[in-house]
């Protein structure tokens, strides 16, 4: 049911479409599909990079 917004970029993790409304270059956003933390690298030629991630211990 997630509707398609206008400006998007591909998620470098899962290749999903990530909406880019109201974001600035350098901002950290999240992929709606795989929840990867992404940095907005470019808005003119929409591009996203994986934000450096702190490895999270999951227990077990």
């Amino acid at each position: 049911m997630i509707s398609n917004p206008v400006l998007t970029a591909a998620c470098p993790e899962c290749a999903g479409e990530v909406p880019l409304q109201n974001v600035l270059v350098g901002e950290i956003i999240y992929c709606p599909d795989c929840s990867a933390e992404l940095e907005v690298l470019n808005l003119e030629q929409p591009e996203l990079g994986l934000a450096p991630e702190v490895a999270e211990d999951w227990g077990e």
Partner: protein
Amino acid sequence: MNRIRATIVGGSGYTGGEVARLLLFHPEVELAQVVSSSRAGQYLHSAHPNLRGLSTIRFSHPDDLMPCDVLLLCLPHGATMGEIARYRQLAPRVIDLSADFRLRDPQLYQRWYGDVHQAPELLPEAVYGLPELHREELREATLVSGTGCMATTAILGLAPLYRAGLVDANIPLVLEAKVGSSAAGAKPGSSSHHPERSGAVRSFQPTGHRHSAELIQELGLLGGHGNSGLPQTVAFSATSIELVRGILVTAHVFTKERIDERQLWRMYREAYQREPFIRIVKERTGVYRYPEPKILAGSNYCDVGFELDVEQQRIVVMAALDNLMKGAAGNAVQALNCMFGWDETLGLTFPGLHPV
């Protein structure tokens, strides 16, 4: 159709997530913002995995709160009262699910919560948001408090008896709540660590439980004691059990005079037959003879039952609900429906599951 715009503060917590779930399916409401300081920018499903795919909303930062038609505050106790002026400027109607505005009397607040109330001038106008008791006041209310989950269960179970003036006030009212782990919220700790909490039958508040204050206030009102509160001794204790959602309150009431079962039935029926979310459960056979919280998970029902010991002139009242629904978020949405004059059941028709 013009939907009203509602915003949730404390939206990453358990009651906040439940309000979000309900409003996403509410025909008259548009979810404007869901606020969280810890998850700002993330999608709702990062905190509430059941909402995956249902919405493109992302959590807003508290600093980005915008005006709206109604604000639902889902913050811990004590976090609201200091900020209430700001919240009321943002929205003409505020529903606060915390305990900050449940008690009418600032002294009572201080006695049970230990702190001086930070907005005592608002206490008289805040409405205790239980539609079954305060439906009329809700229609005009601009500040509504949510209700304590165990208090709600107990009050709804006992209201018909107190309203009928049946209870012998010389004998203490003993109430025992059995409660699941979600009632303590989303914050982990050593007592909620699964290997410790699993299978627990844990007396977490044998005496002095704060929900007593709500009981004393509301049953006092019903019993005609006005603001002075129920004079009877209230002995309320709570036990955590293996359960995530759900509360069962068992209350022991002694009556002034003999009564028979049919009179009790009549009393409860009169009190509740027009209530959309209260059912009387009392069966002689079968597996589900009395209220049982597990089949209420996700529903807004409070099921109420009773058993009479004729000789002892004792009534055992049992009441059950889902602490996150009729005990918190569901009741808040029901109150919201009242405030806007809508059908009270809007967004609240899920009946619960069986088996479960």
